[in-house]
């Protein structure tokens, strides 16, 4: 496999380290359901037969964490993005969503 690293360009997968599912976001530790939330976050996986969003780390390169959309049936890479950008966008969207929900 080869990843198109947003910082370094196209590189072989051997430079990268897989971490895990990027679908889950870390729960709020102060929520009343925190324990159940953290158990699901840490241990449960959808592990679908199709495209996964995964966290990869460019260990032998720029040290960026990446969110990679990859088809686990055929190893085709669909997209590669900076994890930081993805996380910030998710937060923005969540905040935005919360505000609009609050408005209705």
């Amino acid at each position, binding site marked *: *496999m080869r990843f198109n690293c947003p910082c370094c360009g196209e590189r*072989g*997968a*051997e430079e990268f*380290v*897989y*971490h*895990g*599912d990027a679908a889950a976001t870390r729960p709020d530790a102060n929520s009343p359901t925190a324990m159940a939330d953290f*158990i*699901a976050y*840490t*241990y*449960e*996986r*959808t*592990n*679908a*037969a199709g495209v*996964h969003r*995964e966290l990869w780390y460019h260990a032998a390169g720029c040290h960026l964490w990446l969110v990679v959309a*990859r088809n*686990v*049936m*055929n*190893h085709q890479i669909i997209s590669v993005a900076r994890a930081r950008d993805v996380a910030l966008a998710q937060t923005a969207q969540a905040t935005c969503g919360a505000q609009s929900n609050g408005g209705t």
Partner: protein
Amino acid sequence: MAAGGYSIFSVLREALRGHTGWGPAWRDAAPKPAYDIVIIGGGGHGLATAYYLAKEYGEARIAVVEKGWIGGGNVGRNTTIVRSNYLLPGNIPFYELSMKLWEGLEQDINYNAMVSQRGILNLYHSDAQRDAYARRGNAMRLHGVDSELLDQSAVRRMYPFLDFENARFPIQGGLIQRRGGTVRHDAVAWGYARAADRRGVDIIQNCEVTGFRTDGNRVSGVETTRGFIQAGKVGLAVAGNSSRVAAMAGMRLPIESHVLQAFVSESIKPFIDGVVTFGAGHFYISQSDKGGLVFGGDLDGYNSYAQRGNMPVVEDVCEGGMALMPRIGRVRLLRSWGGIMDMSMDGSPIIDRTGIEGLYLNAGWCYGGFKATPASGLCFAHLIARGEAHAVAKAYRLDRFATGHAIDEKGMGPYPHLH
């Protein structure tokens, strides 16, 4: 003739008539409308479960449904090693039961799966590693399992061709389980299939499960590509695909699917007697009775359902091989394959009930499923027949992650690809 026994006499008799008298090793059954118990997955574990259900628990009306051909999953894609050299109390009794079942398997099922106890040697390369192996070896001995800690000279006597001269990580010694060894993997599936068949189990190939039917919170059968099959109880033994099948029942499992490659070399005159694992790299090796070096190493390290891996891991494994035994440099790698591992969150398996009554789960075998086959079958059969965990499989609960009772042999935490 399908019911006929296998022996040297039957082989000689058949030799005289051109082997025309042999019948199918197992019937290619068509699905009946209903069974008491349906086992999903015609791999080693599923077939063994069906066999023990019939033999040990007196169950009748059992079917094994398999989406392709039996033995096509991980029982046909592994490096054939059997051992019970585990560290943790949740694991040792289970794998030791498996070892004992292996030791009597051939006479039990009347099929020579070539259980070959030529020993498994785990090498250590540092004081810390030695002490970790001592801890493991002592744990095994406390459970009545054989283990010996060898020093360098003892290892050298067994395997004089290992790199003792120029190694980056010199070999200091090893932990050996002499009862460990290898088993002809395909024969395990065929042997259990034949033995189960002879006890009336229907083995239904090319029958893929497409869904579950439930009655309230109780399972009532499975939808398949060959129609609905009613079932009182359903056992799921589809390691490699557990998440996909469990999802049909609405479950999310503590499992990721990872690819593990393995390799076999051209056939050469045997010189490696037992199984040797390298302690300073990802490499382990044995030599088959046909002469091929059978070896492997680490997971590719990413999720996959593709049954194939990539070249960096091939190289990593061969580097380990050359570091350990540089005489194999000119031996050629003949075939590679990739198996899909049910990698659980703590590296240990699950044999448990599920939230749906009558639906039982056997999953999360990581890359240890082959050696577990007999015990997994027996314990899963016990669970399905009796509704409670077998004495040696009590730790393999699905809720152990929620309660904080992970069985983490390697101490790697909730990162399946690191186990």
